[in-house]
């Protein structure tokens, strides 16, 4: 029962993007299309799960005063592993996302969950927390990416919905990211309060 609660916590109650407002930089930067948002979310999910498990396993071995550098080393190692594996086995996805992968190291969601959850819970719950938060992040990024892609270019997942000529280019650019995210957060808050 608690397992399900941990997953739902990340997906809904403490959704990293819509509720905690964490990791805004990759959120705004990578969501110019739905597929980019989704890939970034999934890559972050992988790193979150791995780092959460390892950190919860080593939490008692790490002295408090050096825990942040220790966690950062663990997270950075997983990100580099992910980057090399992607470049080797899925070069097509690596090509579109390559630039953003190293940024996962400094994504505050990953370090935030390590500090707030993994350092206090066992490996199983930490893994589930990684799944929940990761999927919540993926969902938010995919949704934001789809909205920006639709309003900006008239496509969703590269499938044309209406002609590109009617798209508002601003939604693909940075200002559109802020506008779309602002309205999404407002809508999510309205639904949560109702």
């Amino acid at each position: 029962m608690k397992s399900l609660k941990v997953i739902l916590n990340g997906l809904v109650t403490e959704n990293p993007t819509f509720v905690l407002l964490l990791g805004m930089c990759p959120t705004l930067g990578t969501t110019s299309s739905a597929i980019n948002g989704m890939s970034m979310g999934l890559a972050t999910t992988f790193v979150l799960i791995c780092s959460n498990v390892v950190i919860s396993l080593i939490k008692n071995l790490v002295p408090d005063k050096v825990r942040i550098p220790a966690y950062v080393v663990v997270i950075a190692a997983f990100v580099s592993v992910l980057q090399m594996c992607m470049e080797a086995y899925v070069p097509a996805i690596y090509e579109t996302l390559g630039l953003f992968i190293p940024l996962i190291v400094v994504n505050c969601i990953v370090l935030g969950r390590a500090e707030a959850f993994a350092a206090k819970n066992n490996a199983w719950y930490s893994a589930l927390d990684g799944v929940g938060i990761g999927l919540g992040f993926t969902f938010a990024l995919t949704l934001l990416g789809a909205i920006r892609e639709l309003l900006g270019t008239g496509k969703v997942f590269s499938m044309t919905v209406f002609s590109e000529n009617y798209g508002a280019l601003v939604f693909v650019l940075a200002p559109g990211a802020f506008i779309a995210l602002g309205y999404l957060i407002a809508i999510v808050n309205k639904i949560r309060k109702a």
Partner: protein
Amino acid sequence: MKGDKNMKLESNFKNMVLVLTIISLIAAGVLGAVYTVTEEPIAIAKAEKQQAAIQQVLNGFDRLEDETVNGLLVHKAYQGDAFVGAAVESETNGFGGKIKIMVGFDKEGNIIDYAILQQAETPGLGTKMVDWFKTDKNNQNIKGKNPEKNKLTVTKDGGEVDAITAATISSRAFLAAVNLAYNAYAANSGAPAVNVVSGATQHIATDSVASAVADTVQVPTDSINALNE
């Protein structure tokens, strides 16, 4: 919970140095192992991509000869003994980093096709270069054009190619790379070179000026040498 606290290692100097060193060593070991495992697949993937790009930008050839001209790699294509064209790997700096492209020319110097090998442009804007310059719409298409006869710069700069909407810098950089590729091709086949209008960064232009100056300086020294002899 209280048990947990007691189990935690004390934050003294020895523990901190020891733990951080061990964690870093393990991480380095893991990275080294993954690097060794993925090194070969990465190299294969890159080589495959290069081969696929050559296949895409050239048609009808049965062997290639690689040559380096002006620092660019030129794959000269032959059908039997007849020269049928060349695929040139060219690079410039774009809006978000290095742009590396492969451009195919037929034996008259017309552009057959191009492929993007590497780029880090803004997703949704500059990244459109992948197919923007081969789409038949207004003056976007550069396929079939000859950089010697057609001025391949963006219309804003007096050229005849439409820039990508909201990505003029990326477009300039891309076209500069195409012109650089043509110059490497032309240097090889004896056709006159074209002026390269640089995109985001000026150092490409200055580079070519520098090499041009070096070329002209070369002539007098040669003649002096001749006189001395």
